[in-house]
């Protein structure tokens, strides 16, 4: 039993280090699902994924298989993917359209898009005098306790209590504001393709890596160097290499010491922001044309404000990593203590010219596809990390880099100047973890 092994979970987390069991213990994993993922706001999908009534997507929240579905009146519901009759899974496909109602493939019970029971075959004769019928809520598909969306991004929480979505997101809302504001129409639209990649490591290892500014120049040196070489060759031949080469070569050209120049911002609930480094506001004709469409939509001053937002990654703990300037996101779905699925999507800026979409697409294909030039080496390290943590060679994982130099300001923790590689984001995530797990 967990209690015999680890009497007090809060002792697993110290300000600058964490016990290795936090990553490897299957019972701690079950508790995490219960106390974190099945409590807090989890990203389900974007409204544009389900444009028509009856459109649905399946989504895993903690250990619970859920459905995000659009109703006839336009409202989006999040339901357990389960028929209340005999427990049959309602939708066997990952996504599709259920028509005017859900119909269970086992005994043909039917349900409205919001989960309410619609009909049972021969309901009158079969159920007269029983407790079963439309008035019994146990005969309807169970709904997520709470569903809210922010600028088109739909979240659900399986717990009644807890902060409202906007409060939970707090400063991390900038991920969605930055993405949507960069669209002349003020909103984004999903590109209906999801890359799904499984990592053989604990879900927290991925999250901790997202804002780890020390790793890129170590882990991604091979791709950075390769892209830089080819970028130079293309420049020599044609004068100018596509921006996508810069996105890759930055892993090598931003040398290890320069990563300290960036900054991380760390917020309550474990959310963190890494400030930008890619310089995605070049002066090429495509960008100039795009900025004109923004000025037309927002005016000059507002456009400058929008383009001045300089972030690279926003981590929304415990399950979403957003790269707003490139309109990408990765949703993290823990499958087990040592298996984690990432679902990777990208978006179009509504009203922006096609070349701006192409920029986002290039990053999606090169960095985030299953043939990624970047994540192959990350995943290799995540696996090795998990393997090492499973050993008795040590008890602690250290997050001590620049510890003691964090600056607390208005409830947030900023890294001090020239401490971009600080392990403050990991400390912040584990602080939130310990609070959730206290229960």
């Amino acid at each position, binding site marked *: 039993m967990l209690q015999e092994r680890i009497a007090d979970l809060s002792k697993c987390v110290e300000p600058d280090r964490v016990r290795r069991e936090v990553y490897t213990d299957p019972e701690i994993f079950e508790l995490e699902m219960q106390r974190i993922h099945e409590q807090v706001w989890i990203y389900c999908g974007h409204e544009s994924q389900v444009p028509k009534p009856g459109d649905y997507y399946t989504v895993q929240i903690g250990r619970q298989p859920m459905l995000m579905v659009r109703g006839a009146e336009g409202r989006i519901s999040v339901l357990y993917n389960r028929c209340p009759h005999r427990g049959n899974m309602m939708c066997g496909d990952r996504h599709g359209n259920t028509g005017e109602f859900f119909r269970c493939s086992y005994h043909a019970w039917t349900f409205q898009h919001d989960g309410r029971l619609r009909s049972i075959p021969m309901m009158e004769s079969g159920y007269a005098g029983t407790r079963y019928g439309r008035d019994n809520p146990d005969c309807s598909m169970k709904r997520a306790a709470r569903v809210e969306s922010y600028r088109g991004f739909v979240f659900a929480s399986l717990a009644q209590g807890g902060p409202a979505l906007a409060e939970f997101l707090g400063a991390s809302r900038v991920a969605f504001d930055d993405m949507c504001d960069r669209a002349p129409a003020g909103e984004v639209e999903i*590109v209906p*393709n999801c*890359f*799904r*990649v*499984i*990592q*053989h490591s604990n879900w927290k290892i991925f999250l901790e890596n997202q804002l780890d500014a020390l790793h890129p120049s170590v*882990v991604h*040196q*091979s*791709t950075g*160097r*390769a*892209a830089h*070489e*080819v970028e130079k*060759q*293309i420049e020599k031949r044609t004068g100018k290499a596509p921006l996508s*080469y810069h996105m*890759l070569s930055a892993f090598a050209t931003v040398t290890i010491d320069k990563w300290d120049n960036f900054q991380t911002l760390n917020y309550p609930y474990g959310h963190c922001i890494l400030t930008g480094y890619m310089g995605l506001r070049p002066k090429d004709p495509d960008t100039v044309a795009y900025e004109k469409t923004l000025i037309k939509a927002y005016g000059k001053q507002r456009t400058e404000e929008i383009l001045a937002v300089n972030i690279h990654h926003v981590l929304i703990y415990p399950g979403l990593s957003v790269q707003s300037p490139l309109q990408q996101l990765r949703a993290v779905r823990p499958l087990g203590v040592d298996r984690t*699925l990432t679902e990777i999507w*990208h978006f179009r800026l509504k009203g922006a010219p*096609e070349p701006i979409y*192409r920029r986002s*697409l290039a990053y*999606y*294909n*090169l960095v985030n*596809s*299953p*043939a*990624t*030039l970047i*994540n*192959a*080496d990350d*995943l*290799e*390290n995540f696996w090795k990390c998990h393997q090492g943590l499973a050993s008795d060679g040590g008890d602690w994982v250290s997050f001590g880099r620049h510890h003691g130099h964090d600056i607390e300001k208005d409830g947030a923790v900023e890294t001090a100047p020239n401490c971009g590689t600080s392990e403050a984001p990991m400390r912040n995530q584990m602080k939130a973890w310990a609070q959730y797990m206290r229960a």
Partner: protein
Amino acid sequence: MKQQHEVEQFLYRQAELLDSKRWQDWIDLFAPDGVYWMPADPSHKHWDGVPSIFAEDRNLMDVRMKRVLHPDAWSQRPMWGTNHVVSNVVIQKASPKGEIEVRSRFHMMELRRDDVRHFAGSYTHHLKKTRDGFRIKLQRVDMTNAQAAYDYVLQVWV
């Protein structure tokens, strides 16, 4: 008959170069404007402007090759190798100018560390006959398991 034989030999050679990790020789099979494409969605007709698992011209192939040859390509450190079998070679179209469209089926077994994975699907090759033999204008790879979740990733061309 002769053309069928030549095309088959070319496709076998393409697969053999991948399995023997002769990356530059493999890239050199492509025409200067040749493209290697693995669609994300089997219904896609053209590689440009849509999400793709691979969509690489020779410059990007060069990046991928240089990456795997770099001593710090960590994912390439463990034992790694592939074995392709190519079959069902059917010429779809052949023009008098030496432009050929050919479909075939492949099965690739991959060993990485101690784990075996299988990938299978169809190739569509658009070939152009040149003085130096065939050159690939387009290699389209429709992998049957392209739509499934990837247990780890693909590092090199299939």
